[in-house]
């Protein structure tokens, strides 16, 4: 029997107070996610239960119980406090998927500070704009990433502390750097979690939009309510589950469901901190006897590419429940997983701003492969007319997805950017920026983005950000960036550029520009292809018409080009 039982029955009498009661939260009282993920589980008598089973490069293994997480997060919180860091200060986590990232996240929240996790593959410019926007006080990082921080340090007077978790003493520490070893530090048995309330800020995740700089999505401690309940009902985590969320906590899935969801339920979490290979993933599932696996379509399609024969070499019979997030899960992948694992991956739809799952498939509900499923109980969803933003009641008619902003994990604002936040609402609906339709059975079907943002491997990339970075390359005169279809990643970044006089548009230059963007922004943002043009399509007012290039890539009708500049 699944945790949710009957979806229809849950809809009848749903109230978020179900989760509040299970978590013993009294409205108006204290709610601290860090405490819920560690101290509370220990108080429930599960202190000796494994909380984190971690594997890294070279076969390294580490294991932490919930009591270890409690004490070590106390130790981190205390260390930060002694540095003078206080509630609501932003503390960035810029690390690979090492234990310090997971336990550090809990420690920051216990202190009442705001956790700002950033993807460790970000280049120095991507890192800088996000730290600058957040006016981050401290960054916790590793030796392998610290050079990126050092490169931009002069531009960040607000960044007071650079905390290295793996300092080995071989080279001297530099300006503002301090070593902290989670294992060797004097362990802090007792730390009183900061008395955060429902609306106290908790996590700041950055996401990309079509225009402008990345936006800091502000979440609050009350988000726990919907993260806990969606974990319980959709991921169906149960007491003895061994859970593997493959997402990196640099992104929202990695915190909402890679830390908060499972640990607030007292469930054992597995982490594999190595690069992707089908063999290593199957081996990990077999070895750790994973029962619940939450992954992404890009990874699933990569596994499909690796072939079915490989799967037969491993005993994956421990798997009892699978789910997917990041981009639409294509029907083929659902059907394939049923064939090879005996279980379908359940697609879940949500985004950084929503903080928790919105439209999803459920353990005991019929799956329609390729569909996003139905709204989570308590979520009021609709398809809206693109002009009037009125609800479309006709089934099968496409429109914009809209949600009534009334669930606990909804973002509270964009950090220092309230104006853009307000623009996300129309006619009382929150617009996530995607188009879809509803079928006659109430299932939602994804159609596409309603803007130019590129979804590559489940991560959003701003074309504006890449275009701006391209213009910083000495050879690039003009740039336009669009999504290009891709079998594995759904979309990848493609750039169109014109080159300045004196530069030759050849393969070597293409590679140089690709690497320039990879290092400056991130591997995700690196154009997988660069096409040289003599000129880019522009409106008469000089604005580059991305949609003309997008249509060319996708084999679509170009549409109205009456505003196109004459040659």
């Amino acid at each position, binding site marked *: 029997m699944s945790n949710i039982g009957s979806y229809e029955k849950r809809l009848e009498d749903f109230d978020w107070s179900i989760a509040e009661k299970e978590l013993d939260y009294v409205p108006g009282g204290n709610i601290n996610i860090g405490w819920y993920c560690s101290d509370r589980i220990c108080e429930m008598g599960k202190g000796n239960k494994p909380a984190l089973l971690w594997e890294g490069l070279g076969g390294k293994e580490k294991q932490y119980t919930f009591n270890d997480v409690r004490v070590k997060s106390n130790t981190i919180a205390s260390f930060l406090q002694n540095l003078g860091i206080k509630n609501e200060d932003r503390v960035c986590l810029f690390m690979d998927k090492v234990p310090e990232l997971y336990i550090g996240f809990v420690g920051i929240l216990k202190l009442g500070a705001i956790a700002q996790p950033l993807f460790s593959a970000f280049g120095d410019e991507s890192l800088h704009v996000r730290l600058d926007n957040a006016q981050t006080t401290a960054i916790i990082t590793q030796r*392998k990433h610290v050079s990126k921080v050092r490169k931009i340090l002069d531009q960040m007077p607000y960044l007071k502390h650079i905390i290295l978790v793996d300092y080995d003493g071989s080279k001297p520490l530099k300006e503002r750097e301090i070593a902290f070893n989670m294992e060797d530090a004097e362990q802090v048995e007792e730390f009183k979690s900061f008395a955060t309330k429902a609306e106290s800020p908790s996590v700041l995740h950055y996401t990309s939009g079509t225009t402008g700089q990345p936006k800091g999505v502000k979440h609050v401690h009350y988000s726990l309510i919907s993260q806990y309940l969606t974990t319980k009902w959709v991921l169906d985590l149960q007491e003895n589950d061994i859970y593997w969320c493959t997402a990196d906590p640099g992104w929202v899935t990695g915190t909402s469901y890679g830390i908060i969801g499972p640990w607030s339920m007292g469930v054992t979490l597995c982490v594999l*901190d*190595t690069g*992707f290979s089908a063999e*290593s993933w199957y081996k990990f599932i077999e070895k750790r006897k994973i029962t619940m696996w939450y992954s992404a379509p890009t990874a699933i399609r990569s596994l499909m590419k690796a072939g079915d024969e490989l799967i037969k070499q491993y005993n994956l019979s421990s798997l009892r429940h699978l789910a997917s997030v990041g981009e639409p899960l294509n029907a083929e992948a659902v059907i394939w997983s049923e064939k090879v694992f005996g279980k379908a991956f359940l697609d879940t739809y949500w985004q950084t701003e929503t903080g928790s799952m919105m439209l999803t498939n459920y353990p005991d509900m019929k799956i329609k492969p390729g569909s996003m499923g139905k709204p989570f109980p308590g979520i009021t969803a609709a398809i809206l007319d693109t002009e009037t933003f009125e609800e479309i009641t006709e089934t099968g008619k496409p429109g914009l997805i809209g949600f009534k902003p009334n669930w606990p994990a909804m973002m509270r604002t964009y950090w220092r950017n309230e104006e853009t936040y307000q623009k996300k609402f129309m006619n009382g609906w929150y617009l996530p920026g995607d188009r879809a339709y509803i079928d006659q059975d109430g299932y939602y079907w994804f159609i596409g983005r309603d803007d130019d943002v590129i979804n590559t491997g489940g991560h959003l990339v701003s074309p504006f950000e890449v275009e701006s970075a391209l213009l910083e390359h000495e050879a690039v005169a003009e740039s336009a960036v669009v999504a290009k279809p891709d079998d594995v990643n759904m979309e990848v970044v493609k750039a169109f550029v014109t080159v300045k006089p004196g530069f030759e548009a050849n*393969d070597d230059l293409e*590679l140089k520009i690709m690497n320039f963007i990879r290092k400056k922004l991130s591997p995700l943002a690196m154009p997988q292809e660069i096409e040289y043009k003599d000129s880019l399509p522009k409106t008469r007012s000089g604005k580059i018409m991305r949609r003309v290039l997008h249509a060319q890539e996708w084999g679509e009708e170009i549409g109205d080009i009456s505003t196109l500049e004459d040659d």
Partner: protein
Amino acid sequence: MENMKEVILEYVIEEYCDEENDDVTFETPLISGGIVDSFSMVSLKRFLENKYKISIPDADASPENFDTVTKIEVLVKRFQ
């Protein structure tokens, strides 16, 4: 004539490593070791194609074939 493995190794260190993790050898796992991610693999593939005037089909540009400098050399020689 340049030693192919040396050239590839030098490029990998230059482009994908920094001073803190430059102890890469011919056998260091690049993809499964997290030094080169799947997105960055495209730029490494492009380097090999430009340098050795070859074309590597996407089907052969797998994480397994790119996992060490030694394996990359085998792959490149297959298409020379």
